[in-house]
């Protein structure tokens, strides 16, 4: 199984991007075998994102044993291991809460996950709220960005070029190793996933 983790603050657009990536991966595999499972960990008694993804026709599992700040759960590990032993999909996409630190999740999967060939972390940042969030929640935003193998600057259509340049510079300081792509989930060019697939083996 290849695990793709989407980190990023609340409202950054993770679910919309996951819908697009899921569509790409399912089309790519074009197999009768189950190739993709999405794991959702949401804040609140009522899951919304899981319903959106299920409505898109995807297999979605909700994880419940997590609190807003920690996310590391027995449920994640047991769900991954159960998937490995039963469905064994080629791809698992995990959307943690918008308050999660992906590096903690990676540590857990690396320690306890079975059948995980590769973990790829996509950090999603909200260009429209970048200045606000980096001021209010610098530690969390830094933690989410620095964990990314790829950083997607979402909602780039809502800011001007000067703002995008500033965001890029800050992102590069936070995470020099990651690729950075500017996207807009509402009008996303799905070819970005092909580029990622080709260059990063995602």
């Amino acid at each position: 199984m290849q695990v793709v983790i989407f980190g990023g603050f609340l409202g950054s657009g993770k679910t919309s991007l996951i819908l697009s990536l899921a569509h790409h991966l399912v089309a790519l595999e074009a197999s009768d075998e189950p190739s993709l499972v999405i794991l959702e960990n949401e804040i609140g008694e009522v899951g919304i994102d899981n319903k959106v993804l299920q409505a898109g026709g995807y297999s979605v599992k909700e994880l419940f044993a997590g609190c807003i700040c920690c996310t590391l759960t027995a449920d994640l590990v047991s769900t991954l291991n159960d998937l490995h032993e039963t469905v064994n999909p080629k791809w698992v996409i995990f959307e943690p809460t918008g308050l999660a630190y992906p590096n903690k999740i990676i540590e857990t999967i690396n320690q306890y996950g079975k059948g995980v060939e590769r973990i790829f972390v996509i950090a999603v940042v909200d260009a429209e709220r970048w200045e606000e969030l980096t001021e209010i929640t610098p530690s969390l935003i830094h933690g989410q960005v620095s964990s990314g193998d790829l950083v997607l600057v979402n909602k780039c259509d809502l800011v001007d070029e000067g703002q995008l340049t500033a965001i890029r510079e800050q992102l590069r300081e936070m995470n020099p190793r990651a690729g950075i792509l500017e996207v807009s989930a509402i009008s996303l060019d799905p070819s970005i996933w092909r580029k990622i697939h080709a260059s990063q083996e995602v």
Partner: protein
Amino acid sequence: MHPRKSDLEETAHQCHPGCEHDHEHHHHDHHHAQGHQPSPDDLFHAPGESPAVYSTTRPVSCPRGVAGPDFTAAMTRCVEKVRDWAADHRHLVGHIKVFVENGKMENLWLASTGKGINLKTSEGWDAGISETFQLHFTAIVFGTDPDHLKTIALTHIDRELKHVSTGETMS
């Protein structure tokens, strides 16, 4: 020393290394931020900034039938009202999300982070008229308390649902 896998499986909740919370968690606590009370520094390095969360699911019966666009307009107003309340009180919106199903595999999805409102509908939603809906609503807001958020959200949800289902408005 790291916990053994069996330790993880036997424990309902595991915090990340270094988490120093006083843990008496059970599943039902996890979706109520105030029940857990993490250290604010764990979240934002901004004292007092742990979010209030309110979420609800409810069936909506509209015997006379409601067109998709009318339900969309009602839920958009609801999200706008909660968003504007947060802005008026300088609260940070984590997100406000609404998902509505009409029982015909058609749905409406609204989301806001305190600025614009993103709206998506499935094929058929705008053309359909339905008598029953299932509404799912979640708001995560920093700077207020859960009871206040619940009161605000319920006020606007109830107002819009009454309006859309009966044509009446609540004062």
